[in-house]
């Protein structure tokens, strides 16, 4: 429970303003949950991080330290599928029927699969030139590496 203890210690040391809590998908290394606190007197920021695995994606809740963390944890639960022990994270941003967690790297963005990437054209080309097959074309970042 060093996560709660560390955040509590930072708060008690003056970082009383809870700015945000979010997560980072580290793929093979699991998830990193990041919390930013602000010390309004010292005017310093504190970035606190904790890790969890992909298979057991859960961290302790910070709602006992900052009640305002509840919304952030609900958003992270929605978007990353990370559980917060001690906090019943009802969906905040996504409809109840939504399948999957959109900010996980493995989540396929359907609109990105369906739409032609504007950067696929080379200088001096228009849409008509894309019909001509080419061995190498620029590929967008963050999409799956296959052509349908």
């Amino acid at each position, binding site marked *: 429970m060093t996560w709660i203890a560390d955040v509590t210690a930072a708060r008690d040391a003056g970082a009383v303003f809870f700015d945000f809590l979010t997560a980072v998908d580290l793929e093979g290394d699991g998830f990193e949950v990041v919390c930013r606190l602000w010390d309004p007197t010292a005017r310093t920021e504190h970035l606190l991080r904790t890790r969890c695995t992909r298979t057991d994606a859960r961290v302790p809740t910070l709602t006992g330290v900052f009640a305002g963390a509840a919304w952030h944890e609900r958003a992270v639960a929605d978007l990353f599928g990370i559980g917060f022990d001690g906090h019943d994270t009802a969906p905040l941003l996504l409809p109840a029927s939504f399948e999957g967690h959109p900010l996980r790297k493995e989540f396929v963005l359907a609109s*990105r699969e369906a*739409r032609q*990437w*504007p*950067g696929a*054209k*080379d*200088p*001096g*080309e*228009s*849409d008509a030139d894309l019909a001509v097959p080419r061995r190498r074309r*620029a590929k*967008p970042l963050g999409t799956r590496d296959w052509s349908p």
Partner: protein
Amino acid sequence: MTGYPVPASSRGIIALDENACTSCMLCARECPDWCIEIDSHKETVHEEGSRPRVVHVLDRFAIDFGLCMWCGICIEACPFDALFWAPSYDHAATEPAGMVHERFDLRQWLSEVPPGTP
């Protein structure tokens, strides 16, 4: 620009200097929202005393401000200083297609860019 006065350096809308644009596609490729569409074609220029050279001629430059998130990465990415922040901000539309602004709109906002903007 109409409405409430804002500082000239405001990030209101993105202006395009067509004469500086080389259709290099860097902004369209860097854009995280895929909101920049560029069409261009090649032309061979014959000049007296030099060999013929191929230039890219811009046919279409459009930014879909319905997708844009005002990150400014296109402006940072442009190696030819063709894109600028302009302060004009009131560009609401009644339908999604109205949020797409073509080169003629983007060029007109160039006049609002404060002088000395990098």
